[in-house]
């Protein structure tokens, strides 16, 4: 049994004009299916607006899906009572791109980190302080930071606070929504290493969300590539790197900058990120796709199984690779 299983999940939002009248709808997440095993890191990658955060919120049950199901440890979530939902939220924690906005500016770090112990009655009052200090050390903050306020910390340290708070309740799954996207590369590397170490030490599972394929590829065991609400390719990190089968994956790989001036410059993916309000016909990717033909403009490709654990949604997946630039 998978720890997390997502089946045909769909979520749309109503669009309204300035008077609040509904003028249409957009499909943020469209027929999404994937699973996540215990101890596994699944990367979710795609450009802004492709539905990554919405997926995270659906799993947290912060949003209600139009249709489809989410199973956690075999249990379907939509049928949970509010008490069961609280326990679910304890087992699944979320960390965000900007932890600052979710940290109470008037509370010290010590108080922020004590809160989950109190709320979920995880430790007797006398032990809480000890547990908080242990947590802080675990994420690389020193105990002397306990009495400081969030604004006194750098971006990287705030992310450590966010991680500590998520860990306090000893969750099984962490949904990390762009946890390093706002950080300097030097700090990004520290936080990535920390997250990987915590994952190993506690046998955690992560749904790791980012728009940078290099980061995703580095941390993940398996990767789902998303485009405009749909998964277009899903396979192991190794296979995706060795044998990308979707033109969008290929484009994301080509756009990664390499710290080597003799390497070819990144190749820009042409065109704008399309809006889910007016999705292109047929294959959503066709206006930006170098392999597209009439068939692609007319009919949407299904996500098909190519071989062992490799799924792709593209009519011309055999041709993909033609435009791939590789590091020498």
């Amino acid at each position, binding site marked *: 049994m998978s720890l997390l299983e997502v089946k045909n999940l769909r979520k749309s939002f109503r669009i309204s004009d300035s008077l609040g009248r509904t003028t249409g709808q957009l499909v943020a997440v469209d027929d999404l299916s994937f699973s996540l095993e215990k101890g596994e890191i699944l990367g979710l990658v795609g*450009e*802004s607006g492709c539905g990554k955060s919405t997926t995270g919120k659906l799993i947290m049950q912060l949003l209600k899906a139009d249709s489809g199901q989410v199973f956690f440890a075999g249990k379907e979530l939509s049928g949970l009572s509010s008490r069961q939902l609280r326990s679910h939220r304890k087992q699944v924690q979320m960390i965000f791109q900007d932890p600052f906005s979710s940290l109470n500016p008037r509370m010290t770090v010590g108080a922020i980190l004590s809160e989950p112990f109190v709320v979920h009655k995880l430790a007797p009052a006398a032990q809480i302080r000890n547990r908080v200090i242990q947590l802080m050390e675990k994420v690389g903050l020193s105990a002397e930071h306990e009495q400081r306020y969030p604004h006194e910390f*750098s*971006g*990287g340290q705030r992310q450590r606070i966010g991680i500590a708070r998520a860990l306090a309740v000893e969750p099984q799954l962490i949904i990390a929504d762009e946890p390093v996207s706002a950080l*300097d*590369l*030097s*700090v*990004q*590397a*520290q936080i*990535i*290493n920390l997250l*990987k170490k915590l994952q190993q030490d506690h046998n955690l599972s992560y749904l790791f969300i980012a*728009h*940078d*394929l*290099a*980061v995703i*590829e*580095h941390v993940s065991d398996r990767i789902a590539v998303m485009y405009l609400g749909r998964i277009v390719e899903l396979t192991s*990190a190794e296979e995706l*790197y060795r044998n990308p089968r979707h033109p969008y994956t290929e*484009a*994301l*790989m080509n*756009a*990664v*900058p*390499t*710290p*080597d*001036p*003799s*390497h*070819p*410059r*990144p*190749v*820009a*993916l*042409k065109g*704008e*990120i399309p809006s889910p309000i007016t999705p292109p016909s047929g294959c959503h990717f066709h206006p930006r796709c170098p392999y597209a033909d009439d068939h692609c403009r007319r009919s949407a490709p299904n996500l098909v199984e190519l071989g062992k654990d490799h799924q792709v949604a593209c009519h011309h997946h055999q041709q993909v690779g033609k435009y791939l630039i590789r*590091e020498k």
Partner: protein
Amino acid sequence: MPSRLSVENLKSYFFTRSGLIKAVDDVSFSIEPGETLALVGESGCGKSMTALSLLRLLPEPGRIVGGEIHLDGKDLLRLPASEMRRIRGNDISMIFQEPMTSLNPVLKIGEQIAEALRLHRVTEPRQALTDAAELLDLVGIADPRRRLRDYPHQLSGGQRQRVMIAIALACDPKLLIADEPTTALDVTIQAQIMDLLLELKQQRQMATLLISHDLGVVAGNADKLAVMYAGQIVEQGKVQQVFTNPLHPYTRGLLNCVPRLGQKQDLPTISGHLPDLIKQPDGCLFIDRCPCPCTQCGNQAPAIEEIEPGHWVRCWRH
């Protein structure tokens, strides 16, 4: 021939209540027409304050306390304020990480570009709009005539950055300062914007100061590279020189922490963080994070030294 831009021993300090912050300390570099110099370092190392010094727009309580800045031989630090304003509208343009903060949310973008054009040269309003549409076309915005009537919030992040670039180009600047122009954008859109900047630089022979915290972004997009740490340049050279033979341990650290495709082992990190700029130690500013400091490093600050022609480093153990 003087350089397009030459900065010599620039010092910009902040006189704060808690003490003196040497945000820019003895910084020197030059940029020629059609050349891009990348200024790279972590948040808080002094990149933006270097850029704002060039425009003489340091926020309070910052002051330029020493050094020289020359644009085509003209000494900017000695110009009267009115003349400096003219330089800002005509010769030096700057674009920022978050275009939304510098665009006016209640003005149509056509008016904002036209305004920049008018600052540069007196133009009749209808002509200004035609020119504005041409600029939008130049920066790769489709259907520019229609877009002139859009408000900033109607555009995507990438389009807004293109509009900012169009505004920056309105005066046909000699020097373009791009302060983390792609940090807030998707990687795919980043590549588009970097392509655009490269193309414009080549067409217009602008000098470009490209500020970034990411050596990956810089590699294919700059001619020269200056690595900044705690207000000082610690290594500088041609991009090829610095990347193939990084001499400062901080440069090596920055290079190693860029995640690369196909690389799964742990990312090497630079331990610790930027030092408190108020407490200036005796020795090298990097000593607390240096993998192999020697005794001299703790006693005396290293000077910047030329190791091979054009390649400079500030480290006792290079």
